[in-house]
């Protein structure tokens, strides 16, 4: 496997260091060839920077990509926004040579060059495509048989497709497949691909952001799932923090929100604390208790079966 740099972005280190811990724990635990890189800035964020100055958006993104280009690394990000922005910028420069030359003439003045050689991946499709079923299944100590998960893809994991090309943009499958490799059931639900709506919190429209969060939480509460699984700090903010805010105001959903690496890490045998699960606003205790209970029941079943066997029963 080609060595890769992890692009943390701004939100994870600033607001959710425990997610960074979860990702680091799993990457190290799987023995993947990754490293931290010096010199990154904001990806930059599309809705904010691109709306105001497209040229600066492209230039900043090209500089970030140039850092991994120069070192011959690929790039993997646990943030959907970052990867979507970087891939869109890379795609734009690949089809517009004049713009690429222009960007490089500016980058040259700070000693950098954008080639676009580096592969850009989001963590979820990266685990699906590059790490693969064999390695993942070999690392699992305790799977999630009997548990129901609501996968929330996060728009920018696979959109825009013309830039990311990593899954079907309107009917993605890879995240669900990963859940099935972990033994869990990924339930189908109406609003599965609906945007989380967190963007509204960035334009001073908090009540509308909450309204969007309710759409999904209400459906999940009604169909009954053990947890929601996602892999985007923005979506996490929307469903963990904002769900917590709504619960404080008297609404009740009780849907634990797990990062993809939380789930994988638990299956690999890491403790909830090692994955920073105790820092989630919405308690994951109920989820963990059910998981323990299922395994305890399996142990009892096994014991009974063994006892019968000793007595000569046909089991």
């Amino acid at each position, binding site marked *: 496997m080609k060595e890769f740099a992890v692009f*943390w972005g*701004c*939100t994870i*280190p*600033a*607001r959710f*260091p*425990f997610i*960074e*811990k979860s990702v*680091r724990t799993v990457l190290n635990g799987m023995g993947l060839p990754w490293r*931290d*890189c*010096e*010199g*990154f*800035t*904001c990806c*930059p*964020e*599309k*809705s*904010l*920077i*691109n*709306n*105001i100055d497209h*040229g*600066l958006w492209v*230039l*900043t993104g090209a*500089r*970030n990509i140039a*850092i991994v280009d120069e070192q011959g690394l690929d790039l993997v990000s646990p943030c959907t926004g970052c990867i979507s922005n970087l891939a869109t910028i890379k795609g734009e420069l690949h089809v517009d040579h004049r713009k690429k030359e222009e960007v490089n003439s*500016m980058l040259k*003045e*700070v000693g950098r060059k954008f080639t676009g050689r580096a592969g850009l991946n989001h963590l979820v499709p990266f685990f699906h495509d590059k790490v693969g079923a064999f390695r993942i299944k070999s690392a699992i100590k305790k799977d999630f048989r009997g548990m129901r998960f609501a996968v929330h893809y996060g*728009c*920018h994991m696979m*959109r*825009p*497709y*013309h830039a990311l090309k990593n899954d079907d*943009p*309107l009917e993605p499958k890879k995240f669900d497949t990963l859940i099935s490799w972990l033994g869990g059931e990924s339930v189908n639900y109406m609003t599965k*691909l*609906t*945007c989380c*709506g967190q*963007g*509204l919190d*960035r*334009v*001073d*429209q908090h009540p*509308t952001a909450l*309204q*969007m969060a309710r*759409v999904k939480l209400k459906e999940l509460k009604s169909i009954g799932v053990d947890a929601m699984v996602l892999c985007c700090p923005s979506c996490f903010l929307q469903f963990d923090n904002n769900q917590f805010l709504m619960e404080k105001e008297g609404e009740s959903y009780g849907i634990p929100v797990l990062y993809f690496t939380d789930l994988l890490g638990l299956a690999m045998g890491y403790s909830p604390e090692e994955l*920073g699960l105790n820092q989630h606003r919405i308690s994951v205790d109920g989820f963990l208790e059910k998981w323990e209970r299922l395994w305890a029941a399996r142990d009892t079943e096994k014991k009974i079966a063994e006892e019968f066997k000793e007595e000569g029963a046909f089991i």
Partner: protein
Amino acid sequence: MIEEHLDFNLLRKCADCGACYNVCPSCLYIEGYDPRAVIKDILKGDFEKWLHSEHIWQCLECHQCLELCYQHYGFENAMTAMRLLATKKGIHPAQVKRGWDMFVKTGRLGEPAMGQRKRLGLPEPKKSGKEEFLKLLAIYKERKAQEKNRGEAEL
């Protein structure tokens, strides 16, 4: 001015189609959000009133419309153009300005939470590219100013 940012031929079809109403999360769940009303006004040249509307900030940029659109265009482009024009006129949510200011000052939208990182046993974060970014930003601004001057001279 708005023609610089939008392709009116594509937009005309957009105004008649509206297929993305079925996938657009804001169309589905936010009352009063109606991108075609905006697009029709843009085509009529009567879009000024929308620059003050909260609706143009409600596009979530989820790209659902873009993927579904047979022109690969979508509502999103119209909303992006409106936001750009609004920002140029100084009409924008306060938060947008705060984010922009932080970005051009530090190259980031947030600094690592050092106390929490320490408690979690996370390593020291790698140095950011702030200084190099600021240098690049100055170069970019200079180029932009030159281009503007050249443009004015040609006129």
